[in-house]
């Protein structure tokens, strides 16, 4: 599985917020896109997931332009978790996860099996019959992730999967994402705000600034105060702890 963005320009209406972006997601990789608010991270993710058309440029999946895929065909290869989604009142966890099987035509038994494996993978089997809207934020995010997992994708696009979650749940969700990535070989392209979390959980990080990719590389290559100063306009200290690079903001 190869996934590549080539010379993407895009934005909203006529306003261009992404200019000539090219990036590549290698099989089995977790890549995180970072940048200040409004820099086009989410737009980039939407274009990558065909939720939005680019002004120009192409998104290639296995060297094929994704705009040529049939909708269902793409949905069987790629799943997207938007920042928020509407969850109908009264919907049960297993009902929501079952919708992840919408792109597939299959027997009820097969759907049931996929629901169960998604519940297990997300460690939420005990929530199966609960009402989604009544769950805590962390539980709900696991359920949403379980739905995308039930889609059985090769590529997972996540838009700020840890927003609205407390610190413990943020780690739990990212642990689960990494587990999916390592155990099921799902490649992940995600947007995060938290530099430390991104650094801990990503194979590669990409910084966006002024419509373009400012720099990209492994956490060790890009977690540097001068880069973060250029991208976010803040002073930071980078701390090493157990081989992980963490970022401590010290203000302007």
């Amino acid at each position, binding site marked *: 599985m190869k996934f590549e963005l080539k010379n993407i320009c895009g934005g909203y*209406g006529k306003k261009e917020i992404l200019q000539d972006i090219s990036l590549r997601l290698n099989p089995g990789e977790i890549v995180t896109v970072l940048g200040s608010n409004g820099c086009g991270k989410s737009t980039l993710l*939407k274009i990558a*997931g*065909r*939720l939005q058309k680019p002004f120009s440029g192409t998104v290639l999946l296995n060297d094929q332009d994704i705009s040529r895929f049939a*909708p*269902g*065909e*793409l*949905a*069987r290869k*790629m*799943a*997207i978790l*938007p920042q*928020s*989604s*509407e*969850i*109908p*009142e*009264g*919907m*049960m966890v297993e*009902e929501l996860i079952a*919708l*992840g099987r*919408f*792109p597939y035509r299959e027997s009820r038994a097969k759907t049931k099996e996929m629901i169960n494996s998604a519940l297990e993978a997300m460690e939420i089997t005990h929530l199966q*019959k*609960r*009402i989604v*809207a*009544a769950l805590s934020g962390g539980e709900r995010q696991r359920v949403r992730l379980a739905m*995308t997992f039930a*889609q059985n994708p090769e590529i997972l*696009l996540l838009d700020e999967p840890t927003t609205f979650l407390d610190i413990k749940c943020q780690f739990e969700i990212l642990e689960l994402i990494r587990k999916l990535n390592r155990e099921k070989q799902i490649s992940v392209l995600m947007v995060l705000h938290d530099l430390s979390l991104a650094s801990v959980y990503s194979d590669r990080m990409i910084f966006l600034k002024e419509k373009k990719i400012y720099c990209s590389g492994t956490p060790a290559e890009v977690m540097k105060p001068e880069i973060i100063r250029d991208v976010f306009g803040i002073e930071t200290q980078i701390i090493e702890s157990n081989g992980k690079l963490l970022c401590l903001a010290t203000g302007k």
Partner: protein
Amino acid sequence: MEQNTEKIKISFFRETRGKILFAAALLVLLLVLMFFSWTVQLELPPISQLLFPKAGEGDGMLRKILMQIRLPRIILGALTGACLAVSGAILQGVMRNPLASPGIIGVSSGGGLCGLIVLLFFPQYLNLQLPASFAGAMAAALIIYGLAWKRGTDPVRLVLAGVAVSSMLGAVSGILMMLSAEETGRILDFTFGSLAAAGEEDVFRVLPYMIVGLLSAFYSAGKINVLALGDDTATSLGLCVERTRFLLIITAALLAAAAVSAAGLIGFVGLIAPHMIRMISGPDNRYLLPVSGAFGAILVVGCDFAGRMIASPGEFPVGLLLALLGPPFFLWLLRRSRYEV
């Protein structure tokens, strides 16, 4: 981890067995109601005699009442109720708005206005009232869809455009009614919704639209479930959002148009029937659509029946009784359920 047992307990009617039982119970209730409404206040000869009357035997008048007056009325009532309820369920799902219904988004008022125009200005072509209401309802749906379009549609814009158009069309209908006070009786029947004038030919005229509408609605029910998650999530699950939304709105309009043209402006069923079923059995549209259809049929047949009983030998229009009796039942259910919209 502390677990709230109250929340974990899922109502019996959410389980597969409960759902099947509930649907079956509704169907039986509908059939019983239809049968009573059909035969009430008549002294029936044995059924064999009714079905196969021997020459010179049997009561011609009785047969006429049963087969030509009551049967079309009851069938039309059931179909109308089903169409309105299914139309409402679709619109609530597609617009992701609990207040959406054929009455509120303008489809009914478009059909109502055209029906009224025929009734008032072309009474000699009264048999055109049905196709005219139908055309009006569909036209209103398309106008609303067009007005809400701005690089794609958005559920909120759709509802707001619908409310605005609906209000205008209603006002025009109101002006027409003011100008023709002498026709009050028939206008009232039409605007409150009544099955009094239903005849055999009406059944056959709307039946094809209703069947096409209902079947395509049931077929698309799974897509409404996906659409309800929001445009982005639905797209990423491989649904063509714009196309599906358009087709569903047209289906809802078709159903509402057929209902309005058959029975006038019966309100409320389209709004409350889906909610009542949702409160009991949850939001899965594959179940919700057919079952709220059955429930809508029960409401209309039941209220038509009640309207004839209460005011006998005259009758109250079914729409009036529905609007009177529906809300208390609805509110009772609303208070009882844990349903939060």
